């Protein structure tokens, strides 16, 4: 039990030491080359049998390390005396950058739909007339097309000038991405598409010429409106972090869905809020991409990303998102 005694005594010695000199003396007392106690122990090892060495060697080594550590720690402590940090100084902020609220909202939307097994896909912002309108069962030369106030591109080639070849526009919704995806993939699947869209309209607090849309599409053997209600209610519940989320449908019309509905949401006991359009994908749309509508069916929906953010964060004006005003960006 000699070791225990030394350990205890050394601890007390270190504890009592109040000056650098005293600590130096303690160091010599234990580790001095001539009289150091630990040194003496280490030296005694060489006269021991192999079995003793194996047993006592590590113990002595541990004791040495322990005492050395205690001495070093005390030494540091004494050195630092009178130079303590003022721990009450205010923080010096390291500022990280801020994502635009649209990006944050998109990320959140992708996370929630990802959790329900929806993959995120994208498509071009400058779109062919076919994908934006015709493939979606929006007839040419019909007032239905006026539901989407469209920016058209000036034809750039001689061929296009004569009205031949593809006509381009700025996509008025993210729905063309559905068509592009379905042309290349077989059902069943569930996807969302987020991105910038364009409408030719006068801007005010609720209208923008450049805005973002969320598109969703789920196709399977028997995907129904009831399934849509489940998915979209679940989405709103997570997105708005609300316990009581009610969703209702109103009759509506979109050429690419049949039946078509408007989706309203009600958070807690507030009033009903219009969120966007939805419905069962029109059989003509399915035919246009080469699916057999008797085998496959499903729902599609389109919501405004800014609208979701405006409701969630109580933002008064849609124009703030793309204003480039960093005071707005840095708030989120």
């Amino acid at each position, binding site marked *: 039990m000699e070791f225990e005694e030394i350990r205890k005594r050394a601890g007390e010695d270190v504890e009592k030491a109040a000056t650098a000199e005293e600590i130096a003396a303690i160091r010599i007392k234990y580790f001095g080359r001539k009289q150091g106690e630990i040194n003496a122990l280490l030296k005694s090892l060489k006269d021991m049998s192999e079995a003793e060495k194996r047993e006592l060697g590590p113990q002595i080594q541990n004791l040495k390390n322990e005492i050395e550590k205690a001495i070093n720690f005390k030494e540091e402590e004494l050195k630092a005396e009178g130079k303590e940090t003022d721990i009450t100084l205010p923080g010096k902020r390291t500022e*990280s950058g801020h994502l635009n609220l649209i990006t944050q909202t998109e990320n959140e939307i992708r996370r929630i739909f990802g959790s329900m097994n929806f993959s995120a896909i994208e498509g*071009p912002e400058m779109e062919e007339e076919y994908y934006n309108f015709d493939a979606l069962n929006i007839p040419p030369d019909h007032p239905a097309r006026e539901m989407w106030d469209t920016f*058209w591109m000036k034809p750039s080639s001689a061929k296009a000038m004569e009205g031949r070849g593809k006509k381009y526009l*700025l996509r008025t919704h993210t729905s063309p991405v559905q068509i592009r995806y379905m042309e290349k993939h077989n059902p069943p699947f569930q996807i969302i598409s987020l991105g*910038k869209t364009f409408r030719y309209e006068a801007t005010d607090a609720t209208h923008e010429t450049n805005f973002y849309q969320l598109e969703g599409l789920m196709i399977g053997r028997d995907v129904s*409106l009831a399934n849509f209600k489940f998915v979209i209610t679940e989405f709103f519940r997570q997105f708005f972090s609300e316990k009581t989320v009610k969703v209702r449908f109103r009759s509506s019309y979109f050429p690419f869905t049949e039946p078509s509905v408007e989706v309203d949401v009600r958070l807690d006991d507030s009033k009903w809020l219009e969120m966007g359009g939805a419905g069962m994908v029109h059989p003509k749309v399915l035919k246009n991409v080469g699916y057999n509508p008797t085998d496959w069916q499903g729902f599609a929906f389109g919501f405004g990303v800014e609208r979701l953010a405006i409701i969630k964060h109580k933002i008064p004006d849609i124009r703030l998102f793309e204003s480039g005003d960093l005071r707005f960006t840095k708030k989120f």
Partner: protein
Amino acid sequence: MKFSYSLIKEIVPNLPGKTKFAEELAMKSFETDEISGDMMDIKITANRWGDASGHEGIAREAAAIFGLHAIPVKKTSLAQVKRKLGIQVAKGSDCYRYVGLLAELRRKRTTPSWMKKYLRVCGIKPINPVVDALNYVMIEIGQPMHAFDADKIKGDITIRKAEKGEKILTIDGGQYELGEKDTIIADDAQALAIAGIKGGKAAEITRSTKRIIIEAANFNPVSVYRTSKRIGLETDASRRYGHGMSSEKAKSGMERAVRLLTEICFLKPIAIADKYEVKEPKKFIKYDAERFQKITGVAVSKNQAAIILTKLGFKMRDDMAQVPAERIDISIFEDLVEEVIRIYGLNEIKAVSPVISIVPVHDDQMIIYRERVKKAFTGIGFDEIISYSFADYSPNAPEIANPISQDKAFMRTNLTRGLDEAIEKNKRVFSEIKIFEFGKVFDGVGKEHWSLAAAVKEKTDQFPLRILRGAVEEISWNMGIGDAEFVPEGKKLIVKAGKTRIGEVSVSADGERAFFEANAEEMMKKSEGEFEYEPVSPYPSVMRDVSLWLSDKTQVGELFEAINTVSGTDLNDVDLLDYYPDHENARIGVTLRFVFQSSKRTLTEAEVNVWMDKFGAVLGAKKGVEIR
């Protein structure tokens, strides 16, 4: 579209109060706003103008919604009018049906006040009894009507395409030049009306008109729509025809008009013509209750469905639904599903979790990449900007045919300008600005790519270019580009990954703003490799600092170039430790720190000295460089 609540109630006498009616209609049929007084604003969807652009159609919806009886509108049959009226429909005239009736006005009376009231609620100004009654037929049953002064017509009426350059003066005083694609109603001398759009002055009804020809017609909707758009004239009639309607309605319109005009003006029909050019087939759709449930998730019995469809005007025989003629929007089973579910109640649909086989979520690569880049940028203190995709002119920029304003007439070809504008907007509020944008830019019509740009605005003594370049180095490294290089080219730095040019760094003339822009798609291609582990050297590094004077014509990049010419050393890194312009003496003080380290052994003082001599020699040999 404006509707009169009391006129709907005349057709459906047990209609609930206006508010209740508006609420239910909004849920089950159309967006509806209650306006003050008798007026309601009902937004008829683009597919329903054919049947619902008149009070009768809305009344039918109401009858179905509330399970009420609708009183049919009273009409006068014209079966006993035997004399034929001379009317020709030319081939290719896009006229589907033309019913014309020659009749005499036997007494002049004024428009009844009830009719005037309904017209006013619907936003139509009363003019004279004949015009008012015809407008009333339009708001009541949705069929546009027109009348000509029969005694002003020379010869027969022909429905034909206009000749190139044919002119018409319309009732409202408008002058239009028509072309071969526009359909007109004409007599032997001239155009009397632009078909489905507006009547002409030539045969206009006046106070002294004694005999009239009433028109109830239907035209190819595309033709009416195109003409209306081309000449820039939209009317209540053209909007209805343009959406498309059933030719069956022409006859009911005529019969209703005759009934009303008989009451008001003692109308006496003389001769009639019914040119039914394009017949409409009867439509039958089989109702399938099982498929209904598969689509909606709601079980509705066959009987319930049949009751709803019958109220909406369908004729049911077993599972077969005959579609009412005016419902041109209904052609497939899914259309029936919509009719039944909306009236039955869309909110009877209960949420049911879909049953699917899960597949790994597979987001587009660019989405994942973009999120990572954005995170990396915000991590080093850059704020994200999202700016408009529109720009003013720049060479090769795709042009918008109908821009919202002249300074937004082109698509952006880069993001840098948007960032510059953002700096301009924010510089009064923030002294130091670090921003980035990740967005689409446009290389031509139908050509676009993802671009990544960043900008730093700082006082020149803080070297914004260095801050930006450092950020780009950090981001490149973070995004898996280990070999990003900055090669000077004129006043810019070209950013290269290996041999590929991925972007460039530039600085404003005053040196306060630095910009970086890269083709993000190229960057992503270069980022796909993963880094492999390289062991950390266990041997100590040796540092040496060298201070130099540069003439103010010499660039630091030249020093690095010179250093790179020396090989065979264990030089690990060279840092620019200090850089300060000494304007008085037209020189720049520079301190470089050389860091040597070997992965195999501890370097000796002596060998490092030898290497430093070599570096000293190549630096000292450069023109404009003086070692301090």
